[in-house]
């Protein structure tokens, strides 16, 4: 049962136990986690194939289904909608259930909605490969996939919010702030963007502005927010201390919400000067809430970081994710202007946030959640596979991030001076860095496979444990 908590005087009597809560979460969360990890694998493979084409154009050429222009958006959207958003739902549901000490409402309904989500993502990815992409970054799914996607999301979010409403622990912990914000933010921005881009379409560059605004909100608020929710849950729990400075966390949370949506458009072309100016300023300003949140976490974990690193697989993932969060924030602020416009350096931000900040945080959290929901342990059966997943994911992130950034520097030099030969310096010259990117995606695929294997082992052990027992 729960140990004494200062804030839940009335909760103890009627709250379900953690075991009951987790039993209710089992089906939807495990399904979402598994599908998310499977899409991570698929998306990383697609991204790997696409990255090979960047220095070896003869690879898979001649088939329009796998031309780079279709493969790359398919990969990015598969990773964003298939892996990232599904994992963030899994985390959201588990966090709501655990922190609210309430059983998930309609677990079967959630699972079915999640299934539909997967179907929609699959149809969308095939639609992109078939040539029906919309042409807007992170919104490439054609209409026939985007609508079912939104519909299944609506069900998932509705039940999640119903569960939240029924919580027995009324005090909302920090993680739930981020979870609720993300759960609301995603449909609001998605419906606005899809409505404006697939429905009533504004003229000209305003479409690019809307698409950029959506991308920024998705990365900075929904996905980074989910990563922060995970960080704020697991860091205090791992070091076994209360969260050090909740006022700081509160300040960071609200400032992130207020400022986070304003950035991301600093490198937009062909728009009046005030838009990149305002957005570039916001890229800087967002450092403040990110710092506030990370300092709050650091003050919580201070002194116990090395110990937790050694003992806890989840903590390792989260520490690297937090470092990457700080890194990508500073990177976007200082090098997010005209010098790196139209380069891989700018494009890499999507990968770093999707796979690094969120991806590592989600994998770390799932390394704790999956065993809790299957075998009841706190760790997955194979610590070797967990270590492999961690190191492969970190190396993968380094490969992708460093490779794209270095390639971006080369392209930036070409963009800045007409005396540089485009083909020699801008194409052949960066091929080496792009090979690093391929290696990075390969490592990420290995990480995903390691996690899936570990997942499979956990499920097998769970089935062996309760073999013959009805569930």
């Amino acid at each position, binding site marked *: *049962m*729960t*140990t004494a*908590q*200062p*804030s839940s005087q009335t909760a103890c009597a009627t709250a379900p*136990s*953690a*075991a009951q809560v987790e039993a209710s979460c089992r089906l939807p969360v495990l399904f979402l986690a598994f599908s998310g990890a499977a899409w991570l694998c698929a998306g990383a493979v697609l991204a790997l194939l696409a990255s090979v084409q960047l220095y070896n154009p003869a690879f898979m050429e001649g088939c329009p289904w796998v031309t780079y222009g279709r493969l790359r958006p398919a990969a990015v959207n598969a990773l964003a909608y298939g892996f990232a958003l599904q994992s963030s739902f899994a985390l959201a549901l588990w966090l709501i259930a*655990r*922190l609210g*000490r309430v059983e998930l409402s309609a677990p079967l309904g959630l699972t079915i909605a999640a299934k539909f989500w997967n179907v929609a993502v699959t149809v969308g990815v095939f639609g992109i490969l078939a040539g029906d992409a919309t042409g807007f970054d992170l919104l490439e799914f054609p209409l026939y996939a985007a609508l079912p996607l939104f519909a299944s999301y609506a069900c998932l979010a509705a039940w999640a919010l119903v569960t939240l409403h029924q919580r027995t*622990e009324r005090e909302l*912990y*920090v*993680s739930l702030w981020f979870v609720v914000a993300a759960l609301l933010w995603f449909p609001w921005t998605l419906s606005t963007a899809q409505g404006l881009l697939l429905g009533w379409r504004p003229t000209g560059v305003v479409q690019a502005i809307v698409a950029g605004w959506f991308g920024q909100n998705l990365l900075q608020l929904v996905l980074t927010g989910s990563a922060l929710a995970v960080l*704020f*849950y*697991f*860091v*205090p*729990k791992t070091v*076994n201390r*209360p*969260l*050090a*400075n*909740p*006022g*700081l*966390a*509160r*300040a*960071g949370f609200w*400032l992130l919400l207020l400022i986070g949506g304003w950035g991301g458009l600093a490198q937009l072309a*062909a*728009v*009046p*000067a*005030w838009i*990149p*100016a*305002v957005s*570039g*300023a*916001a890229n*800087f*300003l967002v*450092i*403040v809430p990110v*710092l*506030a949140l990370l300092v709050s976490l650091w003050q919580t974990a201070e002194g116990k970081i090395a110990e937790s690193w050694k*003992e806890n697989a989840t903590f390792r993932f989260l520490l690297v994710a937090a470092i990457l969060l700080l890194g990508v924030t500073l990177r976007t602020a200082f090098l997010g202007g005209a010098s790196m416009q139209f380069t891989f350096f700018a494009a890499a931000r999507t990968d770093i946030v999707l796979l690094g900040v969120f991806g590592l945080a989600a994998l770390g959290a799932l390394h704790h959640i999956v065993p809790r929901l299957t*075998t*009841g*342990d*706190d*760790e997955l059966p194979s*610590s070797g596979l967990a270590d492999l997943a961690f190191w492969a994911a970190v190396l993968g992130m380094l490969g992708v991030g460093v490779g794209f950034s270095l390639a971006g520097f080369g392209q930036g030099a070409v963009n800045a001076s007409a005396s540089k030969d485009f083909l020699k310096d801008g194409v052949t010259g960066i091929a080496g860095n792009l090979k690093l990117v391929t290696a990075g995606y390969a490592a990420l695929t290995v990480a995903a496979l390691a996690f899936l294997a570990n997942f499979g082992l956990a499920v097998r052990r769970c089935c062996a*444990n309760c073999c013959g027992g009805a569930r």
Partner: protein
Amino acid sequence: MSQNKSKPAPQNADAEPTMAAGGGSAWPFVLLGVVLFGCFLHVENSGGAFRADVYQVGVKVPPPMPNEPEEVKLYKAGAQLYAACAGCHQPSGLGSDALNFPPLAGSEWVTREKPDRLIRIILDAIEGPITVKGKTYDNAAMTPFRGALNESQIAAIATYIRGNKDWGNSAGHVTPAQVKAVMEATSKSAGTKWRATSLETVP
């Protein structure tokens, strides 16, 4: 629940993280204020005053030259307004012999060097026999436009019919000032339609 034997059991696996009491720091807001000030400076320097036509600060695009010479503007406006006349004088400017609508295309009354007669005709209409291009037309049905159109509109129509190259007319344009002068000069006889004889006294 089974435990992972190789590592010590975590103390409170079921416990949720808690928040320490109180807490709160001012430093994020101080930092926010400082960075926000910098942001305002940045936007002021490179934001181009939030104008839609500034794509780079420091590049001052001079105000656009007047789009077209006045005669072109008047011609284009007159082309639209001519619809008021096209009912009788036809969009082709040829009028109708059968219905007694004189043509405007090639008409010597239209293409005289001075537009005064034409302005008077548009202002107060004309009736009675009039010879145009060798044929005589006699029609009392023309409507005067003195109240219906202002001087710019009449100048536009007059410019259009005088300068319509498709019709073979290439006389000079008519300015609103000229129309206004005629309006004032003929204000006493407003309401009385002109006749060819009375118009001939006008230079």
